[in-house]
């Protein structure tokens, strides 16, 4: 039986007409005020060159600010979910451990991150890492000392070598932040495996560690994948927060472009549309995959 979201069969009523009228009036009012009181002149063509520009010297289309910001966002999201996944699995195992020591560590980590506002966390963590760890690692200098071939490779996966310090800062902050949520997902996944599985493994002679490795974790990982997909989408959205500490991702670039062109509306609506398209299509894709695999496993 399919789940019906509405409890009544949809049909056109006076309410529809009233709502359409309300929406039209509201947006009409908005545009009228924007035009008259604000005297805003629409100019989309001034914003589009910031996505791709034609470089006369190179003779081809080169990504401009917004495109580079978008690529940074995608890199942050993909690497971020990877590292957050690793942190999450480790901490998730800690939270479901039999030893209180590990449980305390896991719980402390999750409680801390989940109860601090994301903005505050980003400021504190980035300040801390930028002042302490980054100078010691000095990755920026090391990467720039590598041969050009390696640098080319790195620029595909991590972005321009000049900005690699910046990128890693945002990446670590996002990974640690998302790791707390992944921990909860992993914990729920592990706890969702029925006790009878563990008991069956025990009775077959598996050691505690082998039970975890061959019985619990494979089943837990299957339960973990759908929420992880949701967490990837959440990570793409959270990556916009690191723009507050000058990490050069999409939202930061957008504010850059907005300040220099004064095209407030076009720029922000454009990046909102970009985020929307990415996140919405991903969530539809994951929903489709979920449904497909649910059917297949029956």
């Amino acid at each position, binding site marked *: 039986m399919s789940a019906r979201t509405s409890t009544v069969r949809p*049909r056109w009523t006076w309410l529809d007409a009233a709502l359409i009228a309300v929406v039209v009036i509201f947006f009409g009012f908005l545009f009228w005020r924007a035009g008259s009181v604000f005297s805003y002149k629409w100019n989309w063509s001034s914003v589009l060159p910031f996505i791709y520009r034609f470089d006369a010297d190179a003779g081809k289309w080169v990504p401009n600010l917004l495109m580079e910001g978008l690529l940074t966002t995608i890199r942050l999201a993909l690497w971020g979910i990877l590292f957050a996944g690793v942190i999450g699995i480790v901490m998730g195992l800690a939270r479901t451990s039999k030893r209180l020591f590990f449980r305390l560590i896991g719980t402390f980590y999750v409680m801390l991150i989940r109860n601090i*506002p994301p903005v505050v966390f980003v400021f*504190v963590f980035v300040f801390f890492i930028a002042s302490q760890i980054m100078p010691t690692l000095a990755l920026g200098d090391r990467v720039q000392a590598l041969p050009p071939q390696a640098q080319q490779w790195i620029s595909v996966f991590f972005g321009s070598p000049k900005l690699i310090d910046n990128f890693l800062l945002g990446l670590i902050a996002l990974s640690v932040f998302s790791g707390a949520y992944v921990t909860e997902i992993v914990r729920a996944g592990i706890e969702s495996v029925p006790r009878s599985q563990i008991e069956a493994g025990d009775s077959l002679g598996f050691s505690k560690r082998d039970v975890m490795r061959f019985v619990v974790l494979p089943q837990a990982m299957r339960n973990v994948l759908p929420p992880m997909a949701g967490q990837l989408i959440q990570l793409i959205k959270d990556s916009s927060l690191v723009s507050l500490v000058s990490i050069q991702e999409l939202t930061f670039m957008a504010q850059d472009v907005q300040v220099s062109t004064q095209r407030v509306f076009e720029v922000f609506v454009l990046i909102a549309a970009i985020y929307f398209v990415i996140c919405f299509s991903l969530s539809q894709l994951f929903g489709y995959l979920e449904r497909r695999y649910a059917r297949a496993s029956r």
Partner: protein
Amino acid sequence: MASRANPPEAMNVNSDARSRPPPRAIAWHRSTWFETIQFAVLMTLLLLLILKGANSMGYQWKWDKVPQYIYRVIDGELIWGPLMKGLFVTLDIAWWAGLIAMAIGLVAALLRLSGSIVGSAISWSYVELIRNTPILVQMLIFYFIIAAVLGIPRQWAGILCLAFYEGAFTAEIIRGGIVAVRKGQREAAQSLGFSGFYMYRDIILPQAVPLMLPPLGGIIVNLVKHSSIVSVIAVFDLTTQARTVVSDTFMAFEIWLTAAAMYLVLTITLSIGVAWLERRYRTA
């Protein structure tokens, strides 16, 4: 059936204590107090590491200067410092945004549940729009475009943006709660002559609301957390005040740790309340 997990003795509650196996002694190095001590040692080591790092970059700790930013007593009168004032603004924002978010969520949920095609479409597109864009981008659009065009003052722009953001999640929670009430209840109500408003008031909502309360409590915690986003439009909440004080005094560590601690106290208190709610309304 007796098995390793269910020793035969345990199934007989009145069995003699002698016939039950003695409780297995826990090794001292696995006992609760030792594990707790290990944890405390680990935390202390981490703290020392942080302190060492701070000292190595020549950071001067000035913890004694922090309380003046929280409160001051002048001539026997208590004056709140900037951090406390920011906290009051944060609470104010969260309170108003919460109320408006509940209202928006209720309206959106009802629109979606009604049979209206346009209403359903409006509600669905509102929720999907909010859920698939970052809150920072929403705040920027709200402040620079919507509030500027409609002439909404700064703090209310922040409150409204927050309310619309959490309202989308509230709408999903309310809708989920109402849909979770079994269809048979609705049919029984209709067969007894209940209809529309009375059906909702007497049959559906009393069953739906206990389901909704724990997630709604979670929304309130999220409100307090996300209220810090208003600092990007320079509303003087706790985060903005912390940034201001840090830029004035350069006591970055102390002030940020204090601000984070204030947020933690707030959210953990609210989380405990939510956990209590969850326990109270747990559908066994």
